[in-house]
């Protein structure tokens, strides 16, 4: 129950603070996607139905706070959970660099997919500056994920022991 509450609290407080408190003061690329981190954490560290349950609220928060087409980001977030879960089962090695690469890879894959879809639907969202900002966002969020995941999994392990 405790990890479930931690994931819920992290995603709710992080997302709400980003959207309703910090967004007017900090540039978008310095605001880490806490709901995304919660989803990847659940995929990697919370096994079974508990992980799936923990993922539903962050997926819901992403759906509400991203102005994308309805339903898209909820489904995409659940897909990210299953992908992270598969990575966790097959190739996940618990070292900082692997955590960093997994989060950065998933963030980059999501970002590239959305950009591709925007271009395919007639938009033209790409610019060099925006690309550079996106790289900063991915790197910063992944770095934060390493500290956050190690801390949370360490605490969880100590409690279990």
């Amino acid at each position: 129950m405790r990890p479930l509450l931690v994931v819920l609290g992290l995603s709710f407080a992080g997302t709400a603070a980003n959207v309703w408190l910090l967004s007017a003061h900090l540039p978008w690329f310095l605001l880490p996607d806490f709901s995304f981190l919660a989803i990847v954490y659940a995929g990697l560290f919370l096994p079974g139905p508990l992980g799936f349950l923990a993922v539903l609220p962050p997926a819901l928060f992403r759906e509400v706070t991203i102005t994308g087409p309805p339903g898209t980001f909820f489904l995409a977030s659940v897909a990210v959970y299953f992908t992270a879960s598969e990575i966790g089962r097959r190739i996940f090695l618990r070292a900082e660099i692997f955590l960093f690469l997994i989060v950065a890879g998933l963030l980059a894959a999501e970002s590239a997919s959305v950009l591709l879809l925007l271009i395919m639907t007639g938009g033209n969202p790409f610019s060099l500056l925006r690309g550079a900002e996106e790289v900063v966002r991915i790197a910063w969020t992944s770095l934060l994920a390493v500290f956050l995941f190690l801390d949370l999994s360490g605490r969880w392990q100590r409690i279990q022991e």
Partner: protein
Amino acid sequence: MVRKFLRKWWRLLLAVALLASAIQFFVRPPEVAPGRIVGEIGTSLFRPFYAGVDFLRRSVSSVWTGYFALVAVSRENADLRKEVAALREQLKESRDAVLENRRLEELLRFSKNLEKRTVGARVVGHDVSPWFQGIFIDGGTEAGVEPGMAVLTPAGAVGRIHRTFSGLSEVILLTDSRFAADVIVERTRVRAIAEGMGGNLCRLKYVSPTQDVVPGDRIVFSGFDGSMPKGILLGTVVSVDAPPEGLFMKIRVVSAVNVLSVEEVLVVLSRPMIPFRRGTP
């Protein structure tokens, strides 16, 4: 064999199926979106938080100033410097209030001149995703706000309503790459399609090099496509590039309103004349 494969890879297969559904929803949003129910639940969970933050934003500084003033009054030995500091804070607060009043008065005047039914709303949040430019306003279905309605300020257009919930609406800003509308150059009446390109910029499409458009020209909505009210200012042309080959000029327009720092907006409560499909920008 198949069962073994499915048992081994069901997570990945499920992820692929979910992604395929997400892509389908992205490209062709369904008429009855399950996302709406999901969104309603989500917004009702978030409403106390953003209402609280909005309330705090407006009241904390004035409470703080009032507290200092009270302390200054009750303590007779409070030194002059503290009193001056408190008065300065109060003055700053009053200036903020005066500025807010001015903005609201201007909105009201603009709303009366617009000859369309409008409703005022406060900006309560920003979309922080890297792909979209949007804001959240505190007017929703209960105020009669519907998808497709135009969002304006007296200085010019801000965007268009995307999704509505009770007490909250999402607005796609005119600088979002999904925003497009029919516009005209105010001086020469040349028609074009304006499309968002991020930052504070839009581009004008389909303008022939033989047309007369120069930097500094004001761009207004034509109203022909029914998506935005006629005559509302979009922005000013900042660069015109006529490539030696190619059919059209490359024209950049900076929006009249700094869409990311706007605080109060008006929603025009009339539906676009051209049918606007629910859930599409």
